């Protein structure tokens, strides 16, 4: 049994009397100990999908319309509030894009980490354990840092605190939603290295969200590519990087900054990301697709396994 199985998840945002489908028929599985990357341009529904794993999207404005989210075999969407609190932190922990906004500015970091301990490992809710966690995530002189407020730390250190807080409850799955986007370039690599290292030591699964395909090769076992609320390709990371199958994945790869190339300018994907409620009928990518065919405008492709373990949502996946 996989650790996480999102099956055909559908989520709407209610705006006035309209409901806009932000997540449409998304299926993602994560096995124990596996790292899965969720990739896609901004606004395609990565965060909403990830937050749904612990049912953290506020309802309203959101509404779960269909599908299941099986965590250890139990459907999160059907859980009672009490059970839900148990899996939040207990099974799945989160770190977010902007650590300075994600930490509460008015409480000491030691206090905030201890909160997680009190909820999930009350017998370990001690200063010693907090210090051990801070050491684990590579914060120097943790004994003196425990009384710091978030604003007294750099962005990189704040993100390490977030990681320590997430790991305090010993989760099975760590969801990292663009954990390096708000940080300096030099710090980004350090945080990713830390995640890799912690994963090796603690053996949890990671769902790493990014809009940069460039980091996927180092981090991921498998990759899910999202576009306009749908998964358009899901493949083992190396296969995907060597030979992307969906035209959108190819376009994303071409827009990755490559250190080795002399090319200064990235080829951004032409056209605009369709906004919520304005998705084209048929294939959602066809207006921007270089290999679009007339049929693409009419028929919405399904996510099908075109090769072993490689799922693609494209009518012409086999022929391209």
């Amino acid at each position, binding site marked *: 049994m996989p650790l996480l199985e999102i099956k055909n998840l559908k989520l709407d945002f209610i705006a006035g009397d309209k409901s806009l489908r932000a997540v449409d028929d998304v299926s993602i599985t994560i096995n124990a100990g596996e790292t899965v990357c969720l990739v896609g341009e901004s606004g395609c529904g990565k965060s909403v999908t990830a937050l749904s794993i612990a049912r953290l999207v506020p309802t309203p404005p959101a509404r779960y319309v269909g599908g299941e989210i099986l965590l250890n075999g139990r459907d999160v969407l059907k859980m009672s509030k009490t059970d839900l609190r148990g899996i*939040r*932190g207990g099974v799945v*922990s989160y770190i*977010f894009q902007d650590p300075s906004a994600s930490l*509460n*500015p008015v*409480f000491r970091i030691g206090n905030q980490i201890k909160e997680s301990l009190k*909820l999930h490992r009350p017998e370990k809710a001690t200063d010693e354990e907090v210090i051990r966690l801070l050491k684990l995530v590579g914060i120097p002189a943790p004994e003196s840092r425990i009384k710091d*407020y978030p604003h007294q730390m750099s962005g990189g250190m704040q993100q390490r605190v977030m990681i320590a807080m997430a790991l305090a409850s010993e989760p099975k799955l760590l969801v990292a939603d663009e954990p390096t986007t708000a940080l300096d370039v030099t710090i980004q690599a350090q945080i990713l290295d830390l995640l890799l290292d912690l994963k090796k030591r603690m053996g949890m699964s990671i769902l790493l969200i990014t809009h940069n395909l460039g980091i996927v090769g180092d981090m991921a076992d498998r990759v899910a590519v999202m576009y306009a609320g749908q998964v358009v390709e899901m493949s083992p990371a190396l296969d995907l990087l060597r030979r992307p199958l969906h035209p959108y994945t190819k376009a994303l790869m071409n827009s990755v900054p490559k250190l080795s190339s002399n090319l200064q300018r990235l080829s951004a994907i032409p056209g605009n990301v369709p906004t919520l409620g304005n998705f084209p009928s048929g294939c959602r990518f066809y207006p921007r697709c270089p290999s679009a065919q007339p049929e693409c405008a009419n028929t919405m492709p399904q996510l099908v396994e075109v090769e072993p373990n490689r799922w693609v949502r494209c009518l012409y996946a086999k022929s391209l």
Partner: protein
Amino acid sequence: MLSFIIKRLLHMIPILLGVSLITFFLMALTPGDYFTQLSMNPQISPEKLAQLRAEQHLDKPWYIRYLYWLKDAAHGNLGYSAAYKASVSDLITSRLWNTFLLSFAATLLAWCVAVPLGIWAAVQKDSWVDRLCSLIAFVGLSIPDVLLALLALMFAAATGLFPVGGAQSSLYDLMSPGEQIWDRLHHLILPTIVLAASELAGIMRQMRSNMLDALRSEFVTTARAKGIPEGWVIYKHVLRNAINPLLTIFGYSLAGLLSGAFIVENIMAWPGLGRLTMEALSAKDYPLVVAGVVMAAALLVIGNFIADLLLAWSDPRIRLK
């Protein structure tokens, strides 16, 4: 922290100097003084008047008078009220206590009602509670203090449930201590409600919008993601952040309260500082006016100071600056 407190206390001095200087200057612009009316009285000789004037340095230019006043004030002597035939300090102290009592009661009432209501309205946004609260806020903010004070007096007169103005009954001195306390409270209730009304409405609105802002913050998602029960999320994580901006308006609210108290005291015959200053002004009893104005300014500055202290205590980002 200590240096912060000392620095803020030192800041008060130039403000109070400025206020007293301006008061002296403005009073010099108005013609006449307390003794001008006395000169109509044939029983007082011009020599006697000149002597009385000289005692208060009224024969000198205003800036010289100001310097004399400063010298005395530095020694704790605020002068002598010719109208009341009493030392200004004694007069001010008893009236200050009444104003303080009224302001304190109104502040207490306003905050104790407004903060919980604001939280409730925000947590139950768009529910009937929220709508009722915004209606209360609308009414509280749109009725002027003057009108509300008059309505309260009419209510008291019509129902007889409350005394019509004043701070104590005429029989106060004959009452037992228990009756005396009840009598004071009974007189305090209506002015407090009138004074608290607009204050309450403002704080409630502010609290509601602060709560809504804080509820939208990313750290709330973090807190929920940790598995913290929703009540704990709201009363620990959201509330602490929502209350901080409110502490900054505390100082301003004190300013509003004092000007409100001025109106309420005058209409509802509450023997406070505002009423005393008003009476002194119409009697041109200058030492009393200056002391009243400076005292009001001091209260304002102290209010701001308390607000800063509270904020520093509550918000570590400010404390450590």
